[in-house]
């Protein structure tokens, strides 16, 4: 079994060797390997009701009538809620776009009209799961079907309009024009045009579906929401105004979460219905989403079509710029959107040094499931475009794809992009060399011949990608200058208890990233104790754990924001412990050292040492002898805030994200020309995310992101028919990779520390879809002998590979080269 994890210590950050940088056993594992995790559907409350949503089978239809009488008559049914009640009791959710997009009315249930198959129309609550499901079948909804719109480009014609309040399907549109594209085009030796490229619709389908158990307190008019929401900070900002209540009246509590990947961010509509039902019935209400509901109505990734791509290339292969029209299909409601219309701009040039980039961006609504951030959110789609451009331009102009990448890769860091973002550090060429070495790139031609002898077409592909982490929400102001959103923050608290126990709480919402462990590593190294002595509370709790406005776990930022907050709180606690010890031991602060759970005088007599318990006991239960002006608390909260500065809404420039981790993927595939079957025979992924706090966890993220990419590149696809019916509504036809589908991955890494983060670490974990780019690149390389077809879609199932083999010309007509 090849396990050549290569870690090149090129730029090892100098850190006091302690627990940081060591793959300590994870604290979360003990409970999870015994089935003692606490996932949402595990939570029980006395007298709770089970809620089931009645969902629309139609993609676009008026709601003529809803009759719940038969359901209410069923013994054991507690109550129902329909769209009319929601329209009276709540306000539409806050929209981020500008007019007319922000006129879209988005309620917790469909009001007056359904806009996608699976949209919740009514909710029924009953004593058992089975009864709730039976009652749902007794709710009679009369629909009047309307014409259906399932194509993003078609949506621009506004012949079928989803949201009459907005009067158009366009949610947001704008032109980004950096550098001087026209000049670059004029001076180019070659201009390559690509008529159409399409990034398909898929999602990470976390194994645990969404869910919540909501309790309502009639006396204090407060809701406790036990849930698996990844971003409670923003969830509350949507829900509180809709429920016409204060932010602090919504207590979000998360326990263990079975994966999120961004698909558990837009849960506010379902949660508002649960809050209404809990209030209406005066009992706890529980909802569990099943797989088919999750596929048809929860969170799809952005589907993006690129039209009329033009690329300016010099004779020597230097790329000077590109121009593209992008149409982004956000489905029936722009919930987290239109943020996706700007997030790609964090990585406008991808990994390359071209200076002149023009993007005409439009986002539209269609009768498909609403979009939610999905692993690689919006940057993946754009990075796929840049990597497709490299491979198509290299193939059409006869450049070697490795040389063309190395020639155009960014080499000097920090590097400012055409729209003012700063790539903090990296070594793209270095990562590529390791990846190519891992797949034995030099011996590829021999392998190609061997494959040919077996009747197979062998192809090599490269996918270079960036994991931009730690959003500057000020980027939203480039979409809508009036938005009062900017910067980012995350909070952590650290305290020393009476018996010397170190307790950490976080605002973050881990869904498998091991926050309890990495936070304990940082805390232990700073205050000098063991990881076991640090108790990091599980999950998020708006009332009892600290948190901040942007609290949550998303967009590859924990290693920076989460651990940045922990470091801050740890240092405050450490400094106060040193001050207290100095007072008790009557020694200067500089002479005090914290290590192995003791505060002692450096090189002092062994008895001059106080166990942490002593310090904790003094402050919490024995503080009479402390001087009046010295009031230590040993309980500190720190809010980490990255500095971004203000964005320039005129030129649409500014620092949109703080750190840039790199992932360079390379793979070898074999295509069966008779059937279009694609098999991955070799795969390497190299990552560079600065200081690796817990190397195993970092590698686990790389493995997981690669598996998602492999699934999406070949099988995973949310396909709709012309009636708006989802043809892959569950794991029957939406084939995610199983154990036999994922090859044994080779991994390598470089650690280019980030100069701008507390620990030199960079957020990583989304992987920017590196696997999709490199499989598309490898399939195109494999098919070269069969008429040099051009890969035009991010998803290439067997039937598409077969069609490209059968008719390469139609894909080549997509590309045109004009040379001077």
């Amino acid at each position, binding site marked *: 079994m090849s396990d050549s994890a290569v870690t090149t210590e090129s730029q090892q950050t100098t850190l006091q060797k302690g627990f940081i940088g060591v793959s300590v056993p994870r604290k979360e594992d003990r409970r999870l390997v015994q089935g003692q995790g606490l996932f949402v559907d595990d939570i029980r409350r006395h007298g709770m009701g089970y809620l089931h949503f009645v969902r629309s089978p139609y993609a676009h239809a008026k709601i003529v009538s809803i009759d719940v009488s038969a359901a209410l008559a069923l013994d054991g049914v507690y109550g129902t809620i329909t769209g009319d009640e929601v329209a009276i009791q709540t306000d539409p959710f806050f929209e981020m776009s500008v007019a007319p997009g922000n006129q879209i009315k988005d309620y917790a249930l469909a009001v007056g009209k359904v806009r996608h198959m699976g949209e919740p129309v009514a909710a029924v609550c009953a004593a058992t*799961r*089975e009864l*709730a*499901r*039976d009652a749902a*079948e007794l709710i009679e909804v009369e629909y009047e079907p309307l014409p259906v719109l399932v194509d993003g480009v078609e949506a621009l014609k506004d012949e079928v309009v989803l949201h009459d309040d907005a009067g158009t399907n366009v949610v947001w549109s704008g032109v980004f024009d950096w550098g001087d594209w026209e000049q670059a085009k004029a001076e180019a030796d070659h201009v390559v045009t690509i008529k159409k490229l399409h990034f398909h619709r898929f999602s990470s389908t976390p194994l645990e579906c969404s869910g919540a158990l909501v309790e309502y307190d009639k006396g204090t008019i407060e809701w406790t929401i036990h849930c698996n929401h990844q971003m409670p900070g923003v969830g509350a900002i949507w829900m509180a105004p809709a429920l016409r209540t204060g932010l602090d009246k919504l207590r979000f509590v998360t326990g263990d979460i079975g994966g999120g990947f961004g698909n558990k961010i837009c849960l506010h509509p379902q949660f508002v219905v649960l809050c209404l039902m809990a209030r209406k019935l005066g009992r706890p209400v529980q909802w569990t989403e*099943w797989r*088919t509901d999750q596929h048809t109505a929860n969170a799809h990734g952005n589907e993006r079509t690129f039209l009329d791509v033009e690329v300016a290339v010099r004779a020597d292969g230097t790329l000077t710029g590109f121009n593209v029209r992008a149409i982004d299909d956000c489905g029936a409601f722009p919930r987290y959107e239109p943020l996706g219309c700007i997030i790609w701009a964090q990585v406008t040039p991808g990994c390359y040094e071209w200076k002149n980039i023009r993007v005409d961006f439009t986002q539209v609504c269609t009768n498909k499931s609403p979009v939610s951030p999905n692993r690689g959110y919006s940057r993946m789609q754009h990075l796929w475009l840049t990597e497709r451009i490299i491979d198509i331009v290299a193939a059409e102009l006869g450049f070697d794809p490795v040389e063309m990448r190395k020639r155009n890769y960014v080499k000097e860091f920090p590097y400012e992009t055409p729209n003012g973002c700063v790539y903090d550090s990296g070594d793209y060429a270095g990562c590529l060399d390791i990846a190519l070495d891992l797949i034995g790139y030099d011996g590829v031609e021999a392998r190609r011949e061997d494959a040919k002898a077996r009747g197979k077409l062998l192809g090599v592909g490269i996918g270079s990608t960036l994991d931009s982490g730690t959003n500057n929400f000020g980027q939203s102001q480039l979409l809508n200058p009036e938005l009062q959103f900017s910067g980012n923050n995350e909070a952590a608290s650290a305290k020393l208890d009476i018996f010397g126990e170190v307790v950490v709480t976080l605002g973050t919402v881990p869904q498998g990233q091991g926050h309890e462990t990495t936070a304990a590593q940082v805390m232990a190294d700073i205050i000098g104790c063991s990881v076991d002595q640090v108790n990091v509370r599980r999950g998020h709790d708006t009332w009892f754990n600290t948190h901040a406005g942007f609290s949550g776990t998303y967009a590859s930022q924990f290693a920076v924001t989460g651990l940045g907050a922990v470091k801050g709180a740890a240092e405050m606690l450490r400094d106060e412990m040193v001050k207290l010890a100095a007072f008790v031991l009557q020694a200067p602060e500089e002479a005090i050292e914290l290590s192995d759970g003791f505060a002692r005088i450096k090189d002092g007599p062994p008895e001059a040492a106080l166990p942490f318990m002593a310090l904790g006991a003094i402050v919490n239960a024995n503080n009479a002898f402390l001087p009046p002006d010295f009031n230590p608390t040993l309980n500190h909260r720190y809010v980490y805030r990255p500095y971004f500065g203000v964005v320039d809404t005129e030129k649409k420039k500014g620092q949109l994200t703080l750190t840039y981790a790199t992932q360079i993927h390379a793979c070898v595939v074999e295509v069966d020309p*008779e*059937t279009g*079957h694609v098999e991955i025979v070799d795969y390497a992924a190299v990552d560079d995310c600065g200081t690796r706090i817990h190397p195993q966890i970092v590698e686990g993220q790389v493995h997981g992101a690669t598996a998602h990419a492999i699934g999406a590149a070949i*099988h995973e*696809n949310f*396909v709709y028919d012309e009636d708006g019916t989802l*043809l*892959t509504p569950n794991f*029957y*036809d939406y*084939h995610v*990779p*199983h154990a*036999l*589908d994922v090859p044994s991955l080779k991994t390598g890494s470089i650690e280019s520390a980030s100069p701008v983060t507390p620990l030199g670490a960079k957020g990583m974990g989304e992987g920017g879809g590196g696997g999709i780019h490199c499989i598309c690149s490898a399939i195109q390389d494999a098919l070269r002998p069969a008429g040099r077809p051009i890969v035009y879609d991010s998803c290439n*199932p*067997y*039937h598409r590979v*077969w*069609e490209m083999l059968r008719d390469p010309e139609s894909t080549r007509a997509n590309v045109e080269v004009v040379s001077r």
Partner: protein
Amino acid sequence: MLLREVEYARPSTVDEAVAILSQHDGARALAGGQTLVNVMKARAASPDVLVDLGRLDELKTIGFSSDGMLELGAMVTTSEIVASSEVDVARPILAQVGATIADVQVRNRGTIGGNVCVNDPTNHFPPLLVALDATFTIRGASGERTVAADDFFLGVYLTAVAEGELLTKISVPARTPGSGDGFAGLAIGAHGTYIVDAAATVSGDGVRIAIGCVDAVPVRAQDMETRLAGADLGPDTVRAAAEGLGATLDPPSDVHASAGYRRHLAEVSATRAVLQAAAQAMGAS
């Protein structure tokens, strides 16, 4: 995920099972449940009465008939077939194909009787048993009868087993020296659901080929069989014999394949299955 109300019975003999099935028109047999329970979870269709065959030990045996046919009880699980020495001796293709059905958990519960009675167009055993020319023993209130594979499969979830009847046994001719079996196709991922598959046997009395996933029931490639009768089974001859097979089919088009793609895959799969069988027949593998 949550079934409609259903009545449940667990007979301890085949006759009791047949009796209950005959008395209730909405009654259906529950074998491994690896498809039926999912259909009920989706509430796509719901039987009124489930007759659990789990206790009918007489349907769980693997043995040989007096005239040497391999006999598989309808309640024999796929895992038992994969591990069976009788199968390995008499007709190993059953184990090789069985080993790629879904996964270990499904194979531990799924039965060969359930697999053929459900007759989902993408199930592995229907086309294979047609190619192997198996016979099916069905018991009803009025007694027992046997049906040839070609007449057993009638439609999706529809076979010669009528309401009130029960499939008890599947008999498969043992391999004769100089004969060979093959199974090939294109599946979605490793051990995945088939897009198109084909089974083939090569023996003294000629070639039998059955194509799966192109219709509600397995389709015999009769023209190809006649062209190959007595012919040498080299790659070029077999490939030539497969030409035109696709045009005779009217396969469904879905998210994984267009009708045209399935027609092409039928020809490729049939060719590969026959070449596999031919290789085995000539003792090459």
